[in-house]
């Protein structure tokens, strides 16, 4: 807040080591100087052990969304067929509403949401992004760079 950074999403959880948590932050930053400042300001916190900028690394990136959609019985089969490529799970259902759980890259979740939006979204819950760096960093790895800078 003090440094005027806007955090898009933030997730946090325990790691394999006791007393150490890992946070994944998604931040839109327009220039390199500001990005460097963000990393330095985070590193400066006494409790922060390490800061990695994984924007341009080969990473596995996941988000989970729970999407509650209006789904009258006469449309339900049609809807299930349409969303099938996203392989969502139905985690709750009632007479007129179904809740899908969908996991994947945030772009995939965006696409899923657009797909079901015409049916009427009653409630949308997203966890924010978490990520891990791939063990093998291959330069030819087919990955769209996320950074807007390069």
């Amino acid at each position, binding site marked *: 807040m003090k440094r005027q950074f806007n955090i898009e999403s933030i997730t946090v959880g325990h790691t394999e080591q006791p007393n150490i948590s890992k946070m994944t932050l998604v931040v839109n930053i327009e220039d390199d100087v500001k990005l460097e400042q963000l990393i*330095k300001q985070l590193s400066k916190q*006494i409790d922060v052990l*390490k800061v990695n900028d994984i924007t341009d690394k080969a990473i596995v990136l996941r988000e989970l969304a729970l999407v509650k959609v209006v789904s009258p019985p006469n449309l339900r089969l049609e809807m299930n067929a349409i969303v099938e490529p996203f392989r969502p799970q139905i985690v709750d259902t009632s007479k007129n509403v179904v809740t899908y759980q969908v996991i994947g890259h945030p772009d995939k979740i965006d696409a899923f949401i657009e797909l079901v939006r015409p049916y009427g979204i009653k409630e949308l819950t997203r966890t924010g992004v978490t990520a891990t760096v791939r063990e093998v960093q291959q330069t030819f790895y087919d990955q769209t760079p996320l950074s807007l800078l390069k």
Partner: protein
Amino acid sequence: MTANASTNAKMDASPSGMQEVENRPKNGADILIKALHDQGVDIVFGYPGGAVLHVYDAMYKNPIRHILTRHEQGAIHAAEGYARVLNKPGVVIATSGPGATNLVTGITDAMIDSIPLVIFTGQVATTVIGSDAFQEADIIGITTPITKHNYQVQDVNDIPRIVKEAFHIANSGRKGPVLIDLPKNISTAIFDEAKANVPDEVYLPGYQPNYKPNYLQIQKAIQAISEAKKPVVLVGAGVLFANACDELVEFVEKYKLPVVTTLLGLGSISGNHELNYGMAGMHGAVVANDAITKSDLLINIGSRFDDRLTGDTSRFAPEAKIIHIDIDPAEIGKNIRTDIPIVADAKEALKALLKNDFNAPDTAEWIDYLNSVRDEYPFWYVEDEKEVLPQQIIEMVHTITNGDAIVTTDVGQHQMWAAQYYLQNHSHQWVTSGGLGTMGFGLPAAIGAQFAKPDKKVISIVGDAGFQMTSQELALLKEFNLPVKVIIINNAALGMVRQWQELFYDSRYSQSLMPVQPDFVKLAEAYGLKGYRIQTIDEAERILAEAINSDEPVVVDCRVKQLENVYPMVPSGKALHEMVGVKKF
């Protein structure tokens, strides 16, 4: 002076009290006081209250020198003054809620000026935290952005470790304030030595400040220096915090490098040193700003390129390659592009530069040029037949004390004049609020400085407005017979606000004049102090020397010309070469 002896009688606990402490089980408060003794703390500034009653009780039984100020803000500024002069952490205790929030300005001041402080605040019991209990404030939430680190103690057995870590963090790397919030039930909880985990060495894997400079960067810096034609060294407070003044002087003398300083870097090199071209920035010397603007190599040692120093950053040192030495990596590249970054302690970096013999740059022509600018554009004022000028007062104070006194200031015009006219002979004797610009800082800071150096002459140059923000601390001058000389530069105005209104708001003096002021002489007398008033230059010549040479605390009300402005000046948003008021009108 007798300040050391005249400590609060109540603090001298009876032997039976000590005995009691020995025998009963120790609680959190006892352990806290013991931890302060273990850290070698010899003085604490504070103010008691409900949530810290146990801490004060423990202090009564196991005495530590405690100075009871009249407001928590006084306590924290006193601790800042103490820390600045001794270059070691000042310690503050306040109660929960309002006690803690009254510290906030001082904590922020210490944060922005990197002053080492360890602050203890009381807190309501953990069982009622979050219930809006009496005198509850979320001081951890409030101080997270204004402390280097903060702790809320959750387990009494953590106290020794946390106190040890707090002193380490406050006084290492880039120094700063660390706050420890102590809930009341933790201060009463019984301490179990067996469960306390106090490592011999502080273990903080997320905090590893880098002291030694990178070898390659030093080589690059050496090459740049030896190739420079117009080098200038910009010195900030980092040199003082690193105790690197001797190395600085050796370095600049060896390679004949001109030096300019920031406001907080004053004193790192003698004000009279031939290579010292003075303070740069908004109200700095013309030659200092000219040196930066024309230089081809700027060597910044321990300054954070504050906006009051740089002016318009896009036109700051436009021709210079920039070497930036700073202990805090986040400062490098934050405000000004850097060509050769060196993350290191100023002393270590200077030692590394001195260890390598290299070709001195030929700076003779550059120095000749700077000398001519220095001669051409000294600080100036136009004498007034009737009224005393504030600059004259400060010049006289300088002459009387030979530039050897510890000087604390408040914030505003008088602060700039003190920076311009009181040339410091020694390091760690200039105590001022730089980054935050905290009015009310001067008097309590002088009290802390006098406790730090009981045998030194301490002059507190304050304005009439800022003085009134913390003037209640005059009581301490009397109580502890602290021979501080309070020099009030009284223009019956918020001088700097008035100056800006004159220059940039067509002299619409909106709420910047204070036509009705208390009688400061009587105010001093009300506190049992000697008060003087100066209204003419004759009186100034007669009274100032007497007041300053006395070994008692004094308050001198200097009535000065109201409409005097601080010049030269870089108007806000302008570049350093666009100074106005560079010569006598």
